[in-house]
């Protein structure tokens, strides 16, 4: 049976399959080229890019927790101009939708990064990170109020002509309210969840495991929270939802799709199995064959 795994997220963002990579877990894609054929991915989201270069937070930035990890990278990157000049020319050859994750300290910051990316036809979409818990200014602050989410979305919408994904924070009472605020300001889709704010302590040394004390929790541990929020948001908004949070295989990806996600992102699992993304595509394909599914859309939002 012919199987259609392609998904259309709107405003030109079409993926050959629903599997993308989560920002900050897949570098610029090249880091994984030894392990997988990147052309087999639906899309890849390159790491958080800011207007100016950022050195990020001090070491230690990482702690393993039960079925998860905390990180506090703090958006280390060389800035949007470096990306445009040095990285983009190298990675635009992949036959997979390129999405750039964008962060800023103010709506103007976000907009300026997007304005500079706009001329690059290879950038199919921007993913607007209004939910980074690891930077002092901006970041999560925009993601925890409807006003903040609306302000950033509005600024980006005016600056970028193609697909705009708004990435939502789970550290809120009502994620659907934030999603609706982003939708109202013209977001083409929302992705969720970013990391849960967490903390770990080295009790032998009596100090926090991270230099920043708190950091972002990701990995399989958070998957039940992520599936729940995707399910809630998909029921509330009309735009497509992109699901992420602890996906490690095709089965996990299908949880999000059944909860209402049109596409999914794989994050932390890339650290453990660098070939996990392509395997997930194969596992989704197998599932569809076993269950007589001819179009992945048949499984979307069935819960």
């Amino acid at each position, binding site marked *: 049976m012919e199987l259609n795994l392609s998904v259309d997220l709107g405003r030109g963002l079409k993926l050959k399959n629903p599997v993308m990579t989560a920002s*900050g*877990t*897949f*570098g610029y894609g090249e*880091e*994984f080229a*030894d*392990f997988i054929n990147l052309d087999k991915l639906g899309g890849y989201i390159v*790491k958080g890019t800011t207007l100016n270069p950022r*050195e*990020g937070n*001090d*070491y*230690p*930035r*990482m702690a*393993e927790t*039960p*079925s*998860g*990890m905390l*990180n506090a*990278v703090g958006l*280390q990157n060389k800035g949007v101009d470096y990306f445009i000049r040095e990285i983009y020319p190298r990675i635009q050859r992949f036959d997979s939708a390129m999405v750039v994750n964008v962060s800023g300290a103010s709506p103007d910051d976000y907009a300026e990064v997007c304005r500079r990316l706009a001329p690059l036809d290879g950038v199919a979409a921007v993913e607007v990170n209004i939910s980074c818990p690891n930077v002092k200014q901006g970041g999560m602050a925009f993601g925890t109020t409807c006003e903040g989410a609306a302000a950033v979305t509005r600024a980006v919408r005016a600056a970028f002509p193609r697909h705009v994904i708004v990435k939502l924070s789970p550290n809120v009472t009502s994620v659907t309210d934030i999603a609706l605020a982003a939708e109202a300001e013209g977001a083409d889709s929302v992705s969720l969840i970013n990391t849960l704010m967490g903390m770990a302590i080295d009790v032998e040394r009596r100090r926090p495991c991270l230099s920043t004390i708190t950091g972002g929790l990701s*990995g*399989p541990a958070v998957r039940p929270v992520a599936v729940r929020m995707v399910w809630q948001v998909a029921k509330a908004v009309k735009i497509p939802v992109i699901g992420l949070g602890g996906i490690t295989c095709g089965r996990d990806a299908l949880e999000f799709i059944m909860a209402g996600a049109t596409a999914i992102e794989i994050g*932390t699992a*890339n*650290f*453990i*199995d*660098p*070939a996990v993304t392509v395997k997930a595509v194969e596992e989704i394909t197998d599932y569809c064959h076993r269950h007589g599914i001819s179009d992945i859309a048949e499984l979307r939002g069935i819960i």
Partner: protein
Amino acid sequence: MKKQIIDFRIIDRKMLAGDRYALLKLVVADGSQLPEGIRAGQFAQVDAGCKGVMLRRPISINKIDYATGELWLLVRDAGRGTHAITRLSEGDMLNMVLPLGNTFSYPAAGSKVLLVGGGVGVAPMLQLGIELKAMGTDPVFLLGARSQTDLLELDEFSRTGKVHVTTEDGSMGVRGFVTDHPAMNERYDMVYCCGPAPMMKSVARSARKSGSACEVSLENMMACGLGACLCCVEKTVKGNVCVCTEGPVFNIDQLTWN
């Protein structure tokens, strides 16, 4: 050099220094060749495969023998993940991503070099010594430990080059730390060092004083080992860089140590 995900099989396991270290000898499980071009300083990301451990553990290459197809890992039991790895048995499988990271630099043949290792940090020094010897440079090892019983693979090191020893309790060699050994006072074309951070910093100071070049191998905690997670960063003169891709070997001139 292409990075690969490979199942290895353990063909021999020896516990060393009580039960705190394991020396694992591995071959590619399906009988195929070892990845080519693996060199001293590089490491593997090892899946401990045990309950309660999610991330791989970075373990440096202790020895690689292309003639026999054997790869050796010297593993310290330093937590849940490495504990499980040290408790594996002959015949068990071990999934690894390798080769990762950069290598030690090679000096001109006939150079005067000192290879300093402390604790499990001796691991990469064995393979480095073997490579240097093959290229016409006689390796001199300086190995430090708390006590005689904590010295690892002395037979292997002795077979490869001259060995100096220091022990904190004086039970073998010079009493004290590696930097208390007279060999540390000489000038070398290169001092290579791997061990606990305080030891490496002290060796680096000593090398500067004697006018020796010096390379150290860092052990920062890492998640991916591929330069993607940006967790294992070290402050360098170029800013924060990933130890897993720009390192683990750094010339001390690149670091911001005092």
